[in-house]
């Protein structure tokens, strides 16, 4: 799934490790999210969006998702 995590993180001048510590996950998970290898759970998506002061839809791109 496409995300704006890398973009938002770089705008805040944060490292992946720092972001991971803030949202309660590991650097590897942040890397996987940024490289679109892994899709975050609702809880993690909420934590990330909340950290950046955005909604989940603003951080995660759901346009390709089938319902």
């Amino acid at each position, binding site marked *: 799934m496409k995300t704006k995590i890398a973009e938002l993180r770089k705008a805040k001048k944060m490292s992946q490790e720092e972001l991971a*510590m803030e949202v*309660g996950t*590991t650097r*590897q998970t942040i890397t996987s999210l940024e490289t679109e290898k*892994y899709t975050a*759970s609702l809880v*993690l998506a909420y934590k990330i969006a909340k950290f950046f002061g955005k909604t989940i839809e603003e951080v995660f791109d759901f346009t390709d998702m089938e319902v």
Partner: protein
Amino acid sequence: MEEFRKKVSMRVSIITVITVIYLVLYFLFMKYLKIDDRVVGFIVGSVIGIVSILCFFSIKYRKALKNEYEFKKLYNYENDERRKLIKEKTSKITLMVTFFSLPIFATIFGANNELVFKIIVGIFFYILIVFGILKVYFMKKF
């Protein structure tokens, strides 16, 4: 987080107790039992290996308990959802591979030896029973 701190402290205590028991048993075995040289080599190697692993985890947990950053990092690592997913998928595939390979192994290696055949079939049913019990348990739990 406090719950996890207690859990980590408990782990340190358990590791210490296990290490002491292991070393005491090792010295008692070595002093009072007459064992073949090859077996001694295996025992020494396994004791060194296991005690090293226990020491590694003990140091890791003690370090985390003293340093807040390391503690949070350990907490995040142990509760990481991607890690849990990887563990879950690995376990599932390992079980499937084991489950489907055992009948093949029983046929190949048990063809000329009845005992080997019985052992492999026994393991197959043991895994099947454990799997069934756990499945029922988790179906009722969630």
